[in-house]
């Protein structure tokens, strides 16, 4: 039932992008998102797309695999696009293309809709390249290291990161356990596959309760085991694996610096998206 759930979507190959420091990748994704929001015309977005394509090529993750991540937000994009297309409230310099009650389509709303959809897609594609090329564990390590300054203002960064990585470690174990409980309940005649949504949801109760009980038991044993191995929080702790920036991260730094500069320059020289519209329509 749950066998095909692979956690995260890590794509295990060796590549330039895979070998980058997770901290660098997190920062670059943020830079990439900034670039998307800075790009105020279609040339800027085209630049972002170009940079993303090169990054995907370098990561050796198949394009189809990257594109698959868009499926999740397809509905969201269509929904916002429709709203934007019909109910865009901005001023329009041209005759409406369609006017029907409060529904009005203008050139501006068309441009805006396309623009917004492309932005959303790029957002998801870029961030999923991060999770495709970085294991959840090293993502957690990277986050812990990046958020370390917060521990000076008493944010328990180490503890949060440990909770995260333990959660990641127990997901496959709890999935196995769920499968076992489902089989056990089926053997006793439980029916999970028929009936309406309410009936099916109710049928899950005899699965969830034993799962919860066992999760608590595991948590207790794990905490004993951690105590026995001298765990006492971040106090006096060392770290075996140290993250290291390499030349790859330096390349990445210049790459994304170039992207942001490029996008800003395109904004300055070619203007916003509506100026572009005016340029086409006249």
């Amino acid at each position, binding site marked *: 039932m749950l066998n095909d759930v692979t956690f995260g979507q890590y794509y295990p190959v060796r590549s330039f992008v895979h070998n980058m420091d997770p901290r660098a990748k997190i920062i670059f994704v943020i830079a990439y998102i900034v670039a998307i929001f800075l790009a105020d015309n279609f040339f800027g977005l085209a630049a972002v797309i170009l940079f993303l394509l090169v990054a995907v090529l370098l990561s050796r993750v198949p394009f189809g695999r990257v594109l698959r991540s868009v499926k999740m937000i397809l509905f969201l994009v269509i929904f916002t696009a429709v709203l934007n297309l019909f109910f865009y409230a901005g001023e329009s310099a041209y005759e409406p293309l369609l006017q029907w009650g409060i529904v009005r389509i203008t050139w501006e709303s068309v441009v805006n809709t396309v623009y917004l959809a492309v932005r959303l897609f790029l957002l998801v594609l870029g961030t999923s390249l991060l999770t495709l090329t970085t294991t959840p564990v090293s993502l957690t390590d990277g986050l812990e290291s990046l958020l370390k300054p917060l521990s000076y203002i008493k944010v328990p960064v180490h503890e949060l990161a440990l909770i995260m990585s333990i959660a990641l470690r127990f997901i496959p174990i709890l999935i196995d356990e769920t499968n076992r409980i489902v089989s056990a309940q089926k053997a006793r005649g439980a029916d999970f596959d028929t009936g309406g949504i309410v009936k099916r949801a109710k049928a899950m109760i005899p699965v969830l309760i034993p799962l919860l009980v066992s999760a608590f038991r595991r948590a207790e044993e794990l905490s004993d*085991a951690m105590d*026995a191995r*001298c765990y006492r929080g971040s106090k006096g702790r060392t770290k075996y694996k140290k993250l290291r920036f390499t030349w790859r991260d330096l390349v990445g730094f210049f790459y994304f610096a170039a992207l942001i500069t490029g996008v800003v320059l395109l904004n300055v020289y070619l203007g916003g998206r509506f100026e572009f519209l005016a340029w086409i329509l006249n």
Partner: protein
Amino acid sequence: MEAVRFDNVKYSYREDEDTFAVNGVTLSIEQGEFVAVLGRNGSGKSTLAKLINVLLEPTEGSVQVFGMDAADPDLTFEIRKNTGMVFQNPDNQTVASIVEDDVAFGPENIGVPREEIGRRIDFALDAVGMQAFRHATPNRLSGGQKQRIAIAGVLALLPKIMILDESTAMLDPRGRREVMEVVKKLNREQGMTVILITHFMDEALQADRAVVMHRGEVVMDGKPEEIFARSDELETYNLTLPRAAYICKKLRAAGMPVGEAFTAEELAEEICRSLQKA
């Protein structure tokens, strides 16, 4: 040197009750000894184990580990460093998703420098014969392998005492054998003090000394062979004999003149001898 000393120790899980999980235990374990603690479910053997590394604190009496008093909170950390504990379910004692990270967890906690952690991982994984799985994920390993990783995780702390709390109970016969091999080797080659909590009588035969617990008390204490020779007494504590010894006893009852045997080989020898005589 005395590794563990219990002085009239009592422990109750509930403060308001007079039922003691461990009820007046006095026990001394020497460094380098391999002690099996036997007893049926609820006999207090696991509680005894948790009292040693201060996961529990005695309600009465005192526990000392290498002369350090377990009641002193300042010494808790030092005691735990010296007493490694392996639990029953291998899944519930692994914190990391990669073998070497999990083995590193203990040394990281006590602040071992990074290069030294690397050496300790090497040492611990070699000791349990799992070096080849250093970069693997524990989820894909067999039960016996997972438990050996758990032992490695404890070994990386360089403890002097290793407590195995029913660590073989969830394993198949092969995994059980793997773990016992590792434990015996540690005891023999490194002089590790081993306290093996178990309800498998055959495992107890591998120890130098067997302690039988019943209702929170130590009721028998001696060489495993001596203990198993007193089979009627064992029965009153709901414990069975090792399989070979049990067959031996049945054969004698049926009139075959066999001597004492505890392992399959010894049993085969005894049967041959008695057949030759006949």
